[in-house]
Each structure stands twice: as structure tokens, then as C-alpha cells.
């Protein structure tokens, strides 16, 4: 009898202890916030991660004692982290949504936008695919699942197999809002990043996918082996343009040219500011071009100047 009582007491005590620990754990503060001086955390877009990593390495090589960490995870992940004030800079290949900016404000995060490079979002197919030009509407219909066979757009009689990104990707959202203006086909394969789409298309003769241009050009700014980059026309009456030509992206003749953004909490200061300035300098822009992307178009430079507090 005594033993039984003891056991009960122990159970009670341990449950109470655990419950207490559990509650403490739940309520614990999660705010790591602004990093200490000289440590800048950058997170977000998978499209931008390689480029920003190279920029960060160069910057760190020139400035001793400064430490930057650049990670991917998708634009949505970076923006979510910025809203919760867990990163210093969020990379995003799409613009922040109205409701996200409101959420950030509610958390006391004052969002500032910078455009650090331009991307010619590339629509890619297998190298054996005879289709070379498509209009934006055709691409939209293909990804909505309304066009399902390549022969409908002048290709071979093959069922189209779709490759896209996952919902945490800024490219996923950009492409949906600007090209489809509707939902993706449920049959679209949701790949884990740009590189996986590239691998998938190389192996799939009937595949079509979309990736940042930095992932499909080699050092000579030519498309990499195994796939074709399509020329895209705004509508049936315009001329199809290739994202491989810098002027198409600069003038907006290539309809899928888009800005690659970075978001910060408030006007950046200290190393954060210095790093963004470096990215926008001639040297930083040259690195963006080296990585296959394009320099910031004039119309976005104004946003940068305003938000840098000039």
C-alpha cells in the first residue's frame, strides 16, 4: 500500500515537473533579433542564394572581422523570418505581399526593399524538344494543365510533364501571379529548388520548367548543355525575346524579367548597410553578372536610393 502511494506521488510530481517545463518552453522568448555588430544573417530565395553567397565571400575577404551567413530555404522562408525579426536581410525573388508587410508592421518590423539584381526567369525544356518560342498565355495554359500535349503548341505528340517549385518559393508565387493568373495544375511536380528542376528537365524529354537564369547559363553566358531556354513573347502579336540577351531584360522586352529583392528591418546601418552598398556597387553588380544575372534596371535604382536614406 505504501509503495503504491509512493508511486502515485512520483507520477504526480514528474507530470507536474514536465508540464511546468513544457509551459516554460512554449512561452520562451524566441527573439534573436538584430545580430551583434559585425554579424549579418541573410536568408531566403533559392534563386539568389548562390549569387549572394559569392557576394558575401568577396565582401568578407575585403573586410576582416565581418561575418555574413547566407542560407536558402525559399523566399517565403526568408520573408517569414524577417516578419518574425529573426534575420537581418531577407532575400526574395518576389515582392512582399500587402498582408505580409502588415504582419511585419504588427511585429514592429519596418520593411525596406532593395533591388540587388535582375533575373530573366527562364522557361526551359529538354534539348531534343523542337519548340523554341511560346507566348506568356501559352505557358500559363501549359502550367494550369489546360494544354497537356506538346503538339498543341507545335511540338511532338508527347504528354507535357510539368516541373515547378514548392509554395515557399518566390519564383513559384511570381510565376503564378504573373504568368498563370490562376492555380498550377495538380500534376505539376513540386521540386525542391532550381537545381532539381534543371536536373529533372535534363532527364525528361517531355518536361518544361522555370528557373532563375543564373542556374541555366555557363561561364560564357550560353545555355548549359542538355536543355533549351525558350524565347517568350508577351502575346501572339509580339516578337519572342530571349532572356540570354541583357538588353531584353533591361528594357523589359523579355516579359519574365523580374527584380531580385532584399528586405531589411528599417534603414540598414553598420555592416548591413555596407554590404548592401557593396552589392549595388560596380564590383557587386559585376559579380551578379558573373553569376548569370543582370544589373539593376534604372527604374529600380530609385527605390534603392530612397531606402538607403540618400
Amino acid at each position: 500500500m505504501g509503495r503504491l502511494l509512493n508511486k502515485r506521488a512520483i507520477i504526480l510530481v514528474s507530470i507536474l515537473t514536465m508540464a511546468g517545463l513544457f509551459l516554460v518552453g512554449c512561452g520562451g522568448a524566441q527573439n534573436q533579433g538584430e545580430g551583434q555588430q559585425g554579424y549579418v544573417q541573410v536568408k531566403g530565395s533559392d534563386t539568389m542564394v548562390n549569387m549572394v553567397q559569392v557576394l558575401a565571400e568577396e565582401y568578407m575577404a575585403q573586410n576582416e572581422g565581418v561575418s555574413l551567413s547566407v542560407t536558402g530555404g525559399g523566399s517565403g522562408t526568408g520573408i517569414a523570418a524577417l516578419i518574425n525579426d529573426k534575420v537581418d536581410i531577407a532575400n526574395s525573388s518576389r515582392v512582399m505581399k500587402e498582408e505580409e508587410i502588415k504582419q511585419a508592421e504588427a511585429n514592429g518590423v519596418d520593411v525596406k526593399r532593395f533591388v540587388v539584381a535582375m533575373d530573366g526567369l527562364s522557361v526551359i525544356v529538354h534539348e531534343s524538344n523542337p519548340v523554341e518560342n511560346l507566348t506568356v498565355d501559352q505557358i500559363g495554359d501549359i502550367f494550369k494543365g489546360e494544354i497537356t500535349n506538346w503538339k498543341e503548341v507545335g511540338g511532338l505528340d508527347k504528354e507535357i510533364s510539368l516541373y515547378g517549385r514548392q509554395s515557399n518559393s518566390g519564383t513559384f508565387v511570381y510565376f503564378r501571379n504573373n504568368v498563370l493568373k490562376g492555380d498550377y495544375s495538380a500534376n505539376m511536380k513540386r521540386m525542391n529548388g532550381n537545381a532539381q528542376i534543371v536536373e529533372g528537365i535534363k532527364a525528361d524529354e517531355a518536361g518544361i520548367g522555370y528557373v532563375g537564369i543564373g542556374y541555366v547559363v555557363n561561364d560564357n553566358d550560353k545555355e548549359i548543355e542538355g536543355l533549351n531556354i525558350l524565347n517568350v513573347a508577351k502575346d501572339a502579336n509580339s516578337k519572342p525575346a530571349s532572356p540570354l540577351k541583357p538588353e531584353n531584360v533591361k528594357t523589359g522586352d523579355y516579359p519574365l524579367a523580374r527584380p531580385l529583392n532584399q528586405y531589411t528591418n528599417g534603414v540598414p546601418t553598420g555592416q548591413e548597410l555596407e554590404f548592401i552598398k557593396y552589392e549595388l556597387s560596380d564590383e557587386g553588380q559585376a559579380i551578379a553578372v558573373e553569376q548569370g544575372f543582370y544589373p539593376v534596371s534604372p527604374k529600380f535604382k530609385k527605390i534603392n536610393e530612397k531606402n538607403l536614406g540618400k
Partner: protein
Amino acid sequence: MQKRGKLSKFKEKAIEWFFFGNGILAIIILIGIFTLLLKEGLPTFQEVSIKEFLTSTDWNPTSYSNRSYGIVSLVYSTLLVTVGSLIFAVPLGIACAAYLAEVAHPRMREILKPTVEILAGIPSVVIGFLGIVLVGPMIAKVFNLSNGLNAINGSILLGVMALPTIISISEDAISAVPEEYKQASLALGTNEWHTLITVTLPAALSGIIAAVMLGMGRAIGETMAVLMATGNAPAFPESIFDSVRTMTATIAVELGEVPYNTTHYYSLFAIGLVLFLMTFVVNLISDLVLHKYGEGE
């Protein structure tokens, strides 16, 4: 003397408590996790009807126009891939275990068994990558498909990941069958193959079932490899050659970006709850089976 006895009695008691506390810890953690899943998962049903959640095949919480929260395709995909992996891994695993335990030369066994166990240490991203660049194209070629990112790819990868568990535990079970059983069988005039099939394997059955269940547990909860290799299309799969999206992959993909305390966020925990109940049922069944064969205690 009296005092010392008291002290050692106290010590005895304290140690007993300590071990009891450790034992009970697992239960408390389990209850904690279950409570968390309930607390975060149940608010889903304030906005989504349970009927829609459990019977609709449309999963698209980030839709452009129409949000939908049906998990049928996800559950079906998970089961499809898991069962597929067992069809692949169980015969292979038991055959390999029987070879190791009964047929292989001791020296051969000493090389093979650790090798099999090393297989368990390969990170799942590596296996997932192999799924994309090696298994996928092979499947596409063999079955004449345009690509190999489908359920069968995931099944093969999960099968490979479940194999070490199944082989290792089955081998232990088969080795533990008393020598007398086999000798008695051989003395009755059967050959070794017949002894293996009709005496040794049935005698080791409870251990083998435990091995299969543990392998299944590994397969059902595995995330990274299936996330990379099955294509993750949320459409309801019509055959094993269709791309599938499992429950774990859905949670892994969407939890990173979802705004806290939204229906989408809650619904991901609700998926976790369903997954938890599924693995619970699997474990319960395996327990019942073990008890039925009288070796579960």
C-alpha cells in the same frame, strides 16, 4: 548499524525512483507531443469541416483563388509509397537475413553484416539525390516513361532505407532459434532448405514481424528522400507511375513559410496528428501480433 541500514534503504529507494522516473519520461514526452498536436491541430476545424479534411482529394492551402484542405491524396500517397517499399524490402530483407544467419560462411557474415549496417548510416538526402539522378532515369527507361519522379521511385528508395533495419533485426531473430529445433527437423529426414522454411523462419516469426514493423515505421515517417524523388505533385495518384506527395513531405515543405496561427498552419499540425495516429495503429497491430504468437511479453 541501524543508521547504516536506513541510509542504504534510502539509497535503494532513491535509485529505484530514479529509474522509475526515467521509465516514465518516455510516456510524459509522448503525452506532451500528443497534446501539442491536438492543441495546434484541432483549431483547423473551426474553418475547415472535418468531412472536407478527411474526404476531399484537393490539397491547396496557398491557392490563387480557392483554398482547399483535403488530405485524402496525401494519406493515399503515403500508404502507396510505404506499402510499395515493403513489397520491395521484406522478401529481400528476410532472404538476406536467412542467408546471413543460416547459410553464409562465418567469415562472409562478418564482412556482410557490418556492411548492411553501414547502409543505415547513409543520410537520406544522399539517397534522395540518387533517386533523382540514378533511380529516376532508370525507371523512366525501363517503363518507357518521360520521367522517373513517381511513387515507385520513392518506394525503391524507402525500401533501401528500411532494408538494414529489417535485415539486422531478422538476422538476430533467426540466429536466436535454438539449435535443437533444426537438429530435430534434420533428424526427421528433411533437407536444410525445408528446415529453414518450415521450422526456423516460423520459429523466428515474432522477431521478423517486429523487424518489418520497425522498417515500416522508418518508411512511413521518412521525409527527405521521398520529398526529393517523388515529384510532390498533389494530384490524386492513379497508378504507381504517377508523381505523389506524401504527408511528411507536405509538412516539411509548407511549415517553413507558413504564417503562424493561420488555418494553413493548424492544418499542417492536423496532418501530423493523422500521421501520429497511423503510426500508432501500426505499432498497436504489431504488438497484438506479437502477443498472439506468445512472445511479446
